[in-house]
């Protein structure tokens, strides 16, 4: 997939880094800005009615000074799976209309953290110093798409090397792209999970601007699965549009046509939820999107959610369909409470620890431990 990169901004202290040089060799942008030029252009972008529209065409190369390893920004009020984020950048060239990241960052431009050596050093030190019995599921796809910018960054190889052979960690790449070529060159598929965000075909087509089509994602999943990689699928957000049951059922069927149940490490489900401000931003950017005007009310964490009854009905429907193809496929819910787990999947998940154990179990078996 090719995304439009019109400008590259390079922070002064990132100019001489190897990843910067390699990105510049791979991309042809109309403008390359350095130093004070960046602040001036950033000021101009901020004044536009929709800064994100331009921001998604600007790639900023940053020597990141913060923590590369972070806990997933879950919520205390619901069960969270204890995922660790490996922070490779922020923002994304894909422009999903529902995307929560539209209100998450102050900065509309995409950032890639180009001090890869620092990232690998921090990761290695984290995984080495932690107690050997502890297990960590990492993911790079929380603040950005894991693979959308991979053709420029080339991070899959070095990151996979870092995880290869480790008994205490897996790394999940989560994407709406279909760029899986780097995985096909890896020698060891263990410790690596390639995951795809999924939705209903019709919904994805209109709402996931510049993402690979669902069919292309499924083809990509099939390719990596045939190389021995475990694949994951994430239905998040699930949106109960008119005909949702048929729409999502169709996608579930397509997943199991593309990939054997044995290759699927997990499928996660999460009904649309959002911070109140997101609706305002989306309405300003795209006009009123009907599904954001459904009966959302504030949940325990202040995010807007549909009623538990409706969420349960949705989860049950998808779980039933998934289990009809893969009775043993691990399904988990993202940010849901004990009662929702019980009533929709029939599982008693009382706390975060139980959920972590459930997912760690699946991941550990993939490391060969």
């Amino acid at each position, binding site marked *: 997939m090719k995304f439009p990169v019109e400008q590259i901004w390079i922070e002064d202290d990132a100019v001489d880094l190897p990843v910067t040089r390699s990105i510049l060799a791979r991309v042809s942008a109309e403008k390359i800005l350095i130093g004070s030029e960046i602040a001036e252009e950033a000021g101009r972008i901020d*004044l536009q*009615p*929709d800064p994100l529209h331009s921001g998604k065409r600007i790639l900023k190369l940053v020597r990141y000074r913060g923590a590369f390893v972070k806990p997933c920004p879950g919520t205390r009020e619901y069960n969270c799976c204890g995922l660790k984020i490996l922070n490779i950048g922020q923002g994304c060239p894909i422009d999903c209309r529902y995307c929560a990241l539209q209100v998450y960052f102050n900065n509309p431009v995409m950032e890639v953290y180009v001090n890869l050596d620092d990232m690998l050093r921090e990761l290695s030190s984290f995984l080495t110093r932690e107690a050997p019995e502890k297990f960590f599921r990492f993911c790079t796809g929380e603040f950005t798409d894991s693979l959308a910018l991979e053709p420029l960054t080339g991070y899959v190889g070095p990151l996979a090397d870092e995880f290869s052979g480790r008994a205490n960690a897996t790394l999940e790449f989560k994407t709406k792209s279909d760029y899986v070529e780097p995985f096909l060159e890896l020698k060891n598929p263990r410790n690596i999970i390639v995951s795809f965000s999924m939705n209903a075909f019709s919904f994805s087509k209109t709402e996931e601007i510049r993402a690979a089509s669902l069919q292309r994602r499924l083809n990509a999943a099939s390719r990596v699965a045939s190389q021995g990689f475990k694949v994951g699928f994430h239905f998040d957000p699930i949106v109960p549009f008119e005909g949702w049951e048929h729409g999502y059922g169709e996608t579930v069927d397509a997943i199991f046509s593309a990939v054997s149940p044995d290759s699927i490490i997990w499928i996660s489900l999460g009904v649309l939820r959002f911070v109140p401000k997101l609706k305002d931003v989306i309405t300003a950017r795209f006009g009123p999107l009907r599904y954001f*005007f459904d009966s959302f009310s504030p*949940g325990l964490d202040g995010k807007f959610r549909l009623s538990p009854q409706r969420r349960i009905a949705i989860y049950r429907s998808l779980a039933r369909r998934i289990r009809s193809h893969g009775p043993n496929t691990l399904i988990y819910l993202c940010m849901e*409470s004990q*009662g929702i787990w019980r009533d929709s999947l029939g599982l008693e998940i009382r706390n975060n620890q139980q959920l972590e154990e459930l997912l760690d179990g699946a991941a550990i078996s993939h490391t060969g431990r």
Partner: protein
Amino acid sequence: MLSHENIKIIKINPEQIDLNNRDFFIPSFESLAPMAVSIQNVGILNPPLVKQTLNGLLVPVLGRRRIESLRDLGGSYMIEVKVAPPSLSDDQAFLVAYWDNLDRIRKDSGVRAYVISRLLELFPVQTLVQSVFPALNTAPIGPSLERLKKIGGLEYHILKALSCGKINEKSAVILAEMQVNQREILFELISQLALNSNKAFELISQLFDLSVYWKESISDLLGRPEVRLLLDDTGIGLTEKAALVRDLVRRWKFPEISRDRKNFDEWVKDLNPPGNVSLRPSQSFEDDSVYVEIRVRSRAHVQELADVARRLE
């Protein structure tokens, strides 16, 4: 350039000034009465500034309220006005009005929205951010300016409601998203029910949500028989009527929560807890938990309650 040397002072009848012209208009939603009293007592001490248009009309730049007050007072007499030089361009004349009314623009959100909207029509945003907006302490970010621009385009009486706190800015944003006739109908309902700004926001946002989600216009929603029945009922007071309308709309917007609420209230009624106990469900009935608030006479009783609570943990 506006300086003392090139300003002409003339004597005219205030009726000669075209108050319908709004080229340099900065709204004011305050009553004119105190100013009229002052003018009656001491006259106009500081002559208004007017600008002559190409077709010879005199339009107010500064002092519109003084002229309006004077006209309200009636009578026929001449007043002194300053005439801006032809070299003062229209956009610069608006800036003169802006700087002169800065305090009011800063304090009043309705006025601020109107003025920002007007400034964005006259000047490039970059110029405004550098030399005009800093005085307003408005964050120079594109989307927030867009929002203010939309609000600034609302009808005068809605801006007035925003200015005097009858609706809040969030309500104004939603109203700005609607077609004119639809927002008029909704605004009229809010005014008719005399809702405060928070309750007005609740009703405006829920009805707008429903109209988008159900693909039904505001007028159709409010024309439904169950709404008409309530609004036309002369036997109930305004406060009760407002509560019933809000309750009905809430049931439309949140059918499951409304059902849960009803069941919960019935359960509490059957439980018949003592008067010092109040019960409430979890937020939006997200889980089965119930918050129990117990009022006790002294701290000594708290230990007993803590023991019970520990057993339930």
